[in-house]
């Protein structure tokens, strides 16, 4: 993308975005809620038009239904209520968009491979609603990788998972990247679980996009400039980053009640303590 910008419904989402995604690399898209992270994926998918600048996907203008691009949506309504089996859902990734009666002969083999790659073969015949969150994400990854896409877009694959399941999914994403050589773009609200496998970061905030390596973007001067106020980054002994100064948007991405009356510093301290406890336990 070069100098890309999006305007939706008269509102500028972000502008001046320039970045490239190389095969076999991992790009993390970070930033506060509603900053336009998913919009970036929708642009690549051809679901939303670019308002300025240019975007090429494999040298072409983005268009819907591109099989070279795999996509895993953020919240799949089917997940928690569907009685459909994982195998059927993965099958929809293969021929879901096709009208008509015909059945493709290669389907069985393609599905088998996607299930094997994602380690879902053993539970793929159970209904989706009976699976754990991590198992469902694995099925969703199988769905997204049916065609061995060269570009894999994942919207919040770690949301609503406990730490163990997060680590499992990160390993799986890494495995998929290694075996297929795909470029992977992951939207996330926390860099830490992904930090070990990320090559590039796109940080979206206040209608701007910063791109570069983890160290180029996730540092105090870039983030302070991006947010327009001082940001501090504390690195824990295990190399995890605690970012201080944007707690509102970032430290508590899930809507759980804020402890009332705490100052930012106190809150950051709380968060830091939680991370330490987690690491030492």
């Amino acid at each position: 993308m070069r100098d890309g910008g999006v305007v939706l419904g008269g509102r500028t989402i972000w502008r001046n975005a320039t970045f490239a995604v190389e095969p076999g690399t991992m790009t993390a898209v970070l930033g506060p809620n509603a900053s336009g992270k998913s919009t970036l994926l929708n642009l690549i998918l051809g679901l939303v038009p670019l308002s300025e600048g240019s975007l090429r996907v494999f040298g072409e203008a983005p268009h819907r239904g591109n099989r070279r691009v795999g996509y895993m949506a953020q919240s799949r309504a089917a997940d928690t209520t569907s009685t459909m089996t994982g195998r059927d859902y993965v099958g929809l990734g293969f021929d879901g968009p096709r009208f008509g009666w015909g059945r493709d002969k290669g389907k069985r083999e393609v599905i088998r491979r996607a299930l094997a790659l994602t380690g879902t073969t053993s539970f793929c015949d159970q209904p989706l609603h009976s699976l754990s969150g991590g198992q469902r994400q694995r099925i969703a990854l199988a769905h997204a990788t049916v065609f061995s896409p060269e570009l894999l877009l994942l919207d919040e694959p770690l949301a609503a998972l406990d730490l163990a399941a997060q680590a499992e999914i990160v390993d799986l994403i890494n495995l998929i990247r290694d075996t297929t050589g795909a470029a992977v773009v992951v939207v996330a609200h926390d860099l830490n679980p992904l930090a070990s496998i990320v090559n590039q970061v796109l940080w979206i905030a206040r209608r701007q996009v910063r791109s570069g390596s983890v160290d180029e973007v996730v540092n105090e001067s870039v983030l302070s400039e991006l947010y327009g106020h001082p940001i501090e980054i504390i690195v824990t002994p295990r190399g995890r980053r605690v970012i201080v100064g944007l707690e509102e948007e970032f430290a508590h991405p899930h809507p759980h009640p804020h402890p009332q009356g705490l100052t930012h510093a106190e809150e950051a301290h709380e968060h830091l303590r939680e991370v330490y406890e987690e690491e030492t336990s």
Partner: protein
Amino acid sequence: MSLSDLLSTPFVQHAFYAVSAVALAAGAVGYFVVLRHQAFAAHAIGHVGFAGAAGAVLIGLSPIVGLLVFCLGAGLLIGIGGASLDENDAVVGVTLTAALGLGVLFISLYSGYANATYSILFGQILGVTWDDVGLVAALSLGVLLVVSLSYRPLLFASVDAQSAAARGLSIRAMSLLFMALLAITTVVAIQIVGVLLVFSLLVAPAAAAEVFTSRPLRATGLAMAIALGSAWAGLFFGVWIGGPVSFWITALAASSYLGARLFDRNRVRHVRRALA
């Protein structure tokens, strides 16, 4: 008159063909109604049909014409307005009340209406003519044909709209297609069980089928089979024992759902016991 004589009379024969076609279409479309959690939309379209039928009779047309116009109109309105499923309830609710209001107006304008009203509300399967059977069968088979051809895209758009859109399906178009199918199915089902009992064929068999299988195709087939079974048995009991056929069909379809839930609870208990 013996039972076999009764069963071979033309009006029972007509009814038999009509219920068969309608039950198959309703079972198949019903699977998607349950899958998409749009039972409320199905309910509303039926009631909108009431206004259509009343209006058609008022201006001297066949009720089925009014049903088709109003149900399709309401279906498309709900399809456009509520393409994103979140807004659906409000859109459906407003459409429903507006149409019911119109229905009340039409009835008050037409004095000799009581009999026709009754058959629209509760169905009058034993009164269908050979021409009605032709129309009902043609519409039902048309619905089945379209459902089978667009089965995968409908399923995909219903369970995961985001991914389906990314893969090039128009969610709005699929929503409109589904609503049109639902509207036509409602119209034909109203011929059998009436506006108020349309649910019995559209929702109960599919909801029961979903309990027994996790495979979409099997669930759809099972929903069609349960609907067909309820319709045939309902017609038979209505002729043999008496009482409105629509009552029998409703009672049987509802019992199939109840039975499925009881079976499911037993199964869950067995699994729990096995695990403990």
